[in-house]
């Protein structure tokens, strides 16, 4: 694990710089939005003097850089700005309970992705050369191709309206039948990615000498696959957890909205429709932070799981 510590330090030092740049870009963009937030907030009542006063109180008449400075200062104190839709409440107050909902949904979806993707990937690799390999991968690829905005209504049509198996919408926690559709909808696109990577790594492991040795020893095929093949082919999967996370988040935007799950995805879509920029800005910052931290953890975890990986002077960021 040579070079790991300097690498981690470099990554950790670089992360705030990226976050600062991201926050500045995102902040600047929100200030170019159509419509004057103050005018929207005041509604019918629009006395020019009052508008001016509110604008001054909110600091909206200051230059952009100064406004950004104020935003950063508030951010450091845990304030993400006021939501337009939830008057007088800080975005942070509204957003964190929603994140908790989405996090549980995402965790269940992630479990589905790996629980289906890994066995299918190993299966496809073992069946290479037969029809079941391209067939199983092809089906997964098809599921990956169906956008969530299509798959969710389709599920509603089949499971709710025709078969009456599931309730239409809502949220009742992880152990509630209402989690089935959103979890499936956001996990389906990711399964193909995991299965195909597992297939590729399994195929390369199958050619290794130690697999031939294990077979030559007379071990049962099951033991060879579980002990020697799968254990080694799972390592690279760690690297795509980050990508799967991104897929899940994007899917959650649509699935949560369509299925009435009170998570950040639904919140984001409603905020877009209501042009509630403070919420979207907060979401961008939270997601960026999450992904940066997740990627650093994944990279470090990878060196611990597979000590052959070294980070000398490769890439930053």
């Amino acid at each position, binding site marked *: 694990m040579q070079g790991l510590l300097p690498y981690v330090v470099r990554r950790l030092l*670089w992360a705030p710089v*990226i*976050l600062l*740049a*991201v926050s500045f*870009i*995102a902040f600047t*963009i*929100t200030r*170019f*939005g*159509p419509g004057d937030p103050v005018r929207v907030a005041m509604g019918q009542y629009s006395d020019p003097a009052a508008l001016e006063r509110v604008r001054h109180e909110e600091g909206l008449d200051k230059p952009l850089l100064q406004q950004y400075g104020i935003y950063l200062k508030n951010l450091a104190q845990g304030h993400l700005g006021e939501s337009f839709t939830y008057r007088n409440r800080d975005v942070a107050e509204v957003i964190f309970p929603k994140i908790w909902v989405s996090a549980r949904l995402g965790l269940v979806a992630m479990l589905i992705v790996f629980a289906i993707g890994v066995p299918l990937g190993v299966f496809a690799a073992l069946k290479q050369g037969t029809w079941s390999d391209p067939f199983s991968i092809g089906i997964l*690829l*098809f599921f*990956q*191709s*169906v*956008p969530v*905005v*299509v798959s*969710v*209504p*389709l599920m*509603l*049509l089949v499971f*709710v*309206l025709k078969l009456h198996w599931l309730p*239409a919408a809502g949220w009742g926690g992880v152990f509630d039948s209402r989690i089935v559709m959103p979890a499936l909808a956001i996990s389906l696109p990711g399964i193909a990615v995991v299965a195909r990577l597992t297939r590729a790594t399994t195929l390369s492991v199958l050619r290794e000498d130690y697999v031939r040795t294990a077979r030559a020893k007379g071990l049962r095929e099951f033991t060879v696959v579980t002990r020697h093949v799968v254990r080694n082919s799972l390592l690279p999967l760690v690297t795509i957890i980050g990508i799967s996370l*991104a897929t899940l*988040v*994007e899917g959650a*935007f*649509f699935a949560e909205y*369509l299925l009435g799950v009170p998570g950040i995805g639904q919140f*984001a*879509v409603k905020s*877009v*429709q209501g*042009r509630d*920029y403070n919420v*979207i*800005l907060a*979401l*961008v910052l939270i*997601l*960026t932070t999450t*992904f*940066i931290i997740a990627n650093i953890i994944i990279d470090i975890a990878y060196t611990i799981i597979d000590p052959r990986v070294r980070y000398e002077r490769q890439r*930053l*960021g």
Partner: protein
Amino acid sequence: MAVAGEVEFDSERPSRGPLALATRRLLRKKIAVAALVFIGAFYFCGLFAPVVAPHSYTAQNLDTVNQGPSLSHPFGTDSLGRDMLSRVIWASRTTVVVTVATLLTGGLVLAVGLGLLAGYAGGKVDTAIMRVGDVFFALPGLPMLIMVNATLGARIRGMGWLVAIEKALRIEGFPDYVVVFGALSLFAWVGGARVIRSQVLALRETEYVTAARAMGASTWRIISRHLLPNVSNIVIVGLSTSLGAIAGTEIALSWLGVGVQPPTPSFGPMLFEGGSIRTLQANPHLLLVPGVIVAGLMFSFNLLGDALTDVLTPHAR
């Protein structure tokens, strides 16, 4: 499939270039050909929408509202009595314009241009480009695209010269297209640029580039004759695999109401209307028609991308 053992020896035939060989290998894959046919038909309909579509996308007939498929309207009609077949054909035009424009600007100009520049120039230029890339890479794609489209979209749409181009080119919704593909290109280039840069870094040290430089070849000649041809396979594979994501993101943005605006048709709003539970109950064809076509297109893009990866980068298998 050629019969085994029947090897052709045709000395008369001139030797084939790598592109011709790759094309031939691609056309031998039945699945790839099927995907190509679907994509080709889709792009043909999109490009020649004014000729192909039987009706205008705005032509309403309130006597024939929400009809199922019939002889006069093969895909039925929507809630305003508009012909769904024509709507789908015009919506495919949106997908065609956005994917092609994003490929050209974000894929070719930005990704290839910046990747080549960073890799070949090195030093400060390289650092600057890659650090900016790090920031863009850290920005969460979908939320950021939503924000850019929602805030800057209105401003860009209002620009006089864009409206003038719209009138001159007779492409309805041209400013919308610019908003969507502009934002997409802005965020789509980083992955491609990184891959191309790393390739160029390796190629720069090869003997033939050194030899070319020693013979006094100009930078432009080295780039166009030695570097570009060697990264072209990676570029083609990268572009083909990102096509589905680009088309899908446009649909997602328009679904959210921040992409292509009505009356310009897009699959996004069509799926949004078709996906509500009441529409599903009464008129499932409003979801199924655009849904099946979009899923088919995404599936074809994925299959083609796979086939191209196999054909052009065989060592990566």
